[in-house]
Structure formats: structure tokens, C-alpha cells
């Protein structure tokens, strides 16, 4: 049941995104930027937590979940260190993902050869 909910949530988010791409010609970069910011905003208004509670990884795996981590991190940062936490909290919350993307991205790009585009 948990897996079904993750599937449904992920499928709806990705399906809606595909409609957005087909109908608006938004580039993938813009979609990703929009989703991260939207994730922060929705979490800020308390709208994303219920989706995470229901959909689990279906809500945290899409890039909206990256915004969710940033927003949650800020709240924890403020609770721990006040005004400084406003700046440090977001990146702290998303630190694992950011460092993983940098390190694994670097290693893979270093090891593999570019594929021809066909």
C-alpha cells in the first residue's frame, strides 16, 4: 500500500510536469528551478507535509522534495541558531543531496566517456 501511494504520488507529479512541458514549452532547467522553489513555497504554507505524509518517497523523490528539504532545514536552523539559521538551515537540510550530486557527478564525469548523441 505504501508502495502504491508512492507510485501514485510520483506518477501524478511527473504526469502533470509532462503536461507542463508539452503545453508550455518550458525547458527542463526551468521546470527544475520552478519545482525547487515551489517545493519551498508549498512547504512554507504547510501544504507539502501532508503530501509527504501520504505519498512518502512519491513526494520526496521529485525535485519538489528538494525544496521541501531546504524549507524544513531552515526551520530547524532557526530553532537551533536563530538568525544565522536563516542562512545556514536550508543548505544544511539539503547538504547530503548537494554533496552527493557534486561528488558522484564529478566522479562519473571523470570516469566515463561522453556518449554520441543519437
Amino acid at each position: 500500500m505504501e508502495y502504491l501511494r508512492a507510485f501514485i504520488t510520483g506518477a501524478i507529479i511527473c504526469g502533470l510536469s509532462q503536461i507542463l512541458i508539452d503545453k508550455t514549452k518550458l525547458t527542463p532547467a526551468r521546470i527544475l528551478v520552478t519545482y525547487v522553489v515551489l517545493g519551498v513555497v508549498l512547504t512554507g504554507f504547510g501544504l507539502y507535509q501532508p503530501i509527504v505524509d501520504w505519498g512518502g518517497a512519491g513526494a520526496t523523490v521529485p525535485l519538489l522534495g528538494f525544496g521541501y528539504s531546504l524549507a524544513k532545514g531552515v526551520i530547524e536552523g532557526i530553532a537551533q541558531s536563530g538568525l544565522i539559521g536563516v542562512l545556514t538551515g536550508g543548505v544544511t537540510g539539503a547538504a547530503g543531496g548537494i554533496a552527493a550530486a557534486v561528488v558522484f557527478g564529478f566522479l562519473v564525469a571523470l570516469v566515463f566517456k561522453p556518449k554520441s548523441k543519437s
Partner: protein
Amino acid sequence: MHVSKDEYDALLKQKSPNSPILKDILWAAVIGGLICTAGQGILNLYKMAGLPEKDAATATSITLIFLGALLTGLGWYDKLAKHAGAGTIVPITGFSNAVVAPALEFKSEGLVLGMAAKMFTIAGPVLVYGISASVVYGLVVYVFHLA
């Protein structure tokens, strides 16, 4: 060329952009859903291994990012992306793909301003807007004592 109305309708249906769009959406939903389901499986494995909720979530992101990077290096992710569109772009594996793909493409231009700089072609804007949004949100929360 003469075509009857029925033939014309059939032709129209065949050429109409609507059916590809529906197919696109279905592909995106199924692949995106499956990636999230895999994420749930990985998350549950980490929880079963005894990681606390928050660490398990972080470890899941890290694992998916690793897999996305590896599959991009092997050239498989982009093959899947051709069909799955948003289904491969929107999950965090797509973020990883957006880091590795340009880095590989521009590797020949050097390891610093080629590969390393291009890693942030898409990831850079995502971090700029994402982190800025989180700071704005944090300021609002801090100033108005919302948390």
C-alpha cells in the same frame, strides 16, 4: 488527392499531436512513479537497517543521485529520458542527470572550466533559486516568529 471524410478523420487521428501527448504523459507518469516506488523501497531498506527517519531520507536521496549519475555515465538514463520525458527529469535522479550530462559533454574542454563548470549549468540555477527561496522563507519565519 481525394479522401473521404472517414479516411480524413483516420488520417487526422493518426497525425494529431494529441495522441503523442497522451502517450508522453503516460510514459512520464509510469516511469516517474516507478522511480518514486524504487525510492520508497530504498528508504524502507535504510529504515530496516536501523537508520533514523531523517538519515534514511538523506541516504535515499544520496543513493538515487548516485544511481542517476551512474546510469547517465553508462548512457542508459538519456535513452530512457527520450521516452519518459518529465518522468526522468523531475525525480532527483534527473537532477543528477542534469549534473553529469553536460559535464561529460564538455569534458574535452578541460577539467576545470569544461567539466567542472558545466556540472552547474542546470544545478547552479536550481541551487541559486532553491537556496534563495529558503532564505526568504526563513526570514519571513524569523521576523514574524512563525516557528
